[in-house]
């Protein structure tokens, strides 16, 4: 299959169209605007709809309406815009409507800046909006994975009738890499027998985002939780890399996961034996598998482009059986291979006694 050189944002947008996405609603924000730009031309070519909304809030609610009709639909944004979409995401979750939401994370908090960051981890994996809900979160680390995970995101959204977030960052969004577009090959999906199209000759249907009776709302919440448990059983994904005799387990997702691969390679040259654990699904998080690896290796160093978010899940995973160290950069700063190696050296020389945060 032919390899094409493409920018992350555009590759993701093309993958969405190939995955059957026919509707997109969004609002411009750096560093993800090329997704909108690409789809504004591409979707009409395949009979789809591109609409630039007046606000992020309107965009996610247009997604809600479109999803209710059974269309594959997507929106994309970056940190501040994703914050505005949380109201709608919470509604989509309770109404059990599928959609794909892309967050090309930039530096925060507030308007922050437009450089790459991973500081929206909590927002993505812990619900983000109000109420007890979860969305599946996929963390790509290359332009090829932006393509492959976009396919997967649309499949999972339809499989579980749930929003799926693709959590990228400004670096993945803007970088160019060769990609291959395989034919999306979705396993059979449940029929969308709940969609709203006008009742025709049949019984009328409705989709709402509330249950005013407390008993009903509790039942609905429990049903959602059963669905989330199923996601944990069936969809948890991660990558492990490195030698059996590793002494330090490096943990990082997305762009950092990619940098850590170089750290493993470079470290080996000077006898620093590291292994890599890269969570691919951030929800569901690979708690059990990570614990096994951590137990085997003995010490853990978590690296993130934030000041300590996923590290909390790593600590939950390892349940205190091994020490967990942390190295974080923020504000759009990207951790360098050498600084991570230096941290690794210090840990292995027992120079870092505390489970330092930075």
């Amino acid at each position, binding site marked *: 299959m032919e390899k094409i050189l493409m920018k992350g944002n555009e590759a993701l947008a093309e993958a969405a169209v190939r995955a059957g996405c026919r*509707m997109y*609603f969004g609002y411009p924000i750096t560093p993800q605007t090329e997704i909108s730009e690409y789809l504004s031309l591409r979707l009409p070519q395949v009979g789809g*709809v591109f*609409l630039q*909304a*007046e*606000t992020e*809030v*309107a*965009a996610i*609610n*247009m*997604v*809600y*309406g*479109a*999803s*209710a*009709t*059974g*269309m594959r*639909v997507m929106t994309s944004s970056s940190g501040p815009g994703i914050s505005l979409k949380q*109201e*709608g995401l919470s*509604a989509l979750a309770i*109404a059990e409507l599928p959609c794909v939401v892309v967050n090309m994370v930039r530096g925060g908090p507030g308007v922050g800046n437009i450089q790459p960051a991973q500081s929206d981890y909590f927002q993505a994996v812990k619900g983000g909006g109000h109420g007890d809900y979860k969305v599946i979160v996929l963390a790509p680390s290359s332009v090829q994975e932006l393509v492959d995970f976009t396919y997967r995101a649309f499949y999972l959204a339809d499989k579980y009738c749930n929003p799926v977030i693709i959590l990228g960052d400004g670096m993945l969004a803007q970088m160019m890499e060769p990609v291959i577009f395989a034919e999306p090959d979705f396993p059979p999906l449940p029929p969308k027998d709940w969609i*709203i*199209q*006008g*009742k*025709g*000759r049949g019984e*009328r*249907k*409705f*989709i*709402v*985002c*509330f249950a005013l009776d407390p008993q009903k709302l509790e039942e609905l919440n429990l049903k959602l939780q059963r669905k989330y448990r199923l996601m944990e059983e069936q969809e948890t994904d991660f990558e492990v890399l490195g030698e059996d005799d590793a002494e330090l387990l490096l943990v990082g997702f997305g762009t950092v996961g990619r940098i850590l691969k170089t750290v493993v390679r470079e470290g080996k040259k000077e006898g620093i034996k590291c292994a890599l654990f890269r969570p691919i699904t951030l929800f569901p998080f690979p708690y059990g598998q990570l614990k096994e690896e951590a137990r085997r290796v003995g010490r853990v160093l978590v690296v993130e482009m934030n000041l300590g978010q996923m590290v909390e899940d790593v600590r939950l995973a390892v349940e205190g059986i091994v020490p967990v160290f942390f190295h974080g950069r923020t504000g759009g700063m990207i951790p360098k291979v050498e600084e991570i190696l230096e941290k690794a050296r210090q840990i292995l020389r027992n120079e870092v006694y505390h489970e330092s945060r930075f």
Partner: protein
Amino acid sequence: MRVVFERPRTLIKKPFTYCPGCHHGLAQRLIAEVIDELDIGAVTIGVGPIGCSVYIYEFLNVDFVVGGHGRAQAVATGIKRALPDRVVFSYQGDGDIGAIGTAEAIHVANRGELITSFFINNAVFGMTGGQMAPTTLLGQKTKTSPLGRDAKVHGFPLRLAEMLKVAEGSAYIARVALTQPHLIKQARECIKKAFLAQIEKKGFSLVEILSPCPTNWGMTPEDAVKWLEEKMIPYFQLGEIKVKEGDFNGAS
């Protein structure tokens, strides 16, 4: 025997749960009658708001989608863009469309979104218990303007229908009340014209329906009707505010 009066087919057979003297039930019945008359029940999708208006989905026998507070017109946009040949309407209160959903209201009108919005204006937040709405009249006492609405503090009652008139994409805008039989007849006509503006692809359409909220106004149903006629109608004047002829030049 000739049938002169019957329940509209589109009205589900169950008693309205609105307060005595509330006009939500009447407004919804009129919408149901027009849906029957135009024979569009099979292809109509309603979009509910949050607030007392939301209960419409329990009473009208058409497909319904309800999203968040103030978002009905964005939800309706998503539906209409997915299914351009369906008839899509939103039904919203003054808080929903006139406060939290103003951005959506202005932009569906400006895009000429081919949807119809019904806007129940009762000058208060009903469901939350009678707080000041964007449409609360000057001097009107509410739970959050206990000394009466003061323009210097709270600004002026919002005439949303007039605001949306200037949007190029709006095709039909009217304001009606349901306090007299002849007004009810006019309202029914306006509702029909609003649906037709959508069906004939002329642009966005809106009917604002002035409605009493006796519960939160602290009045008997009779006094509430009187207050609506004496206080609300002079400020929110009734009639067709915009009737656009000719070809459509908004969203398709």
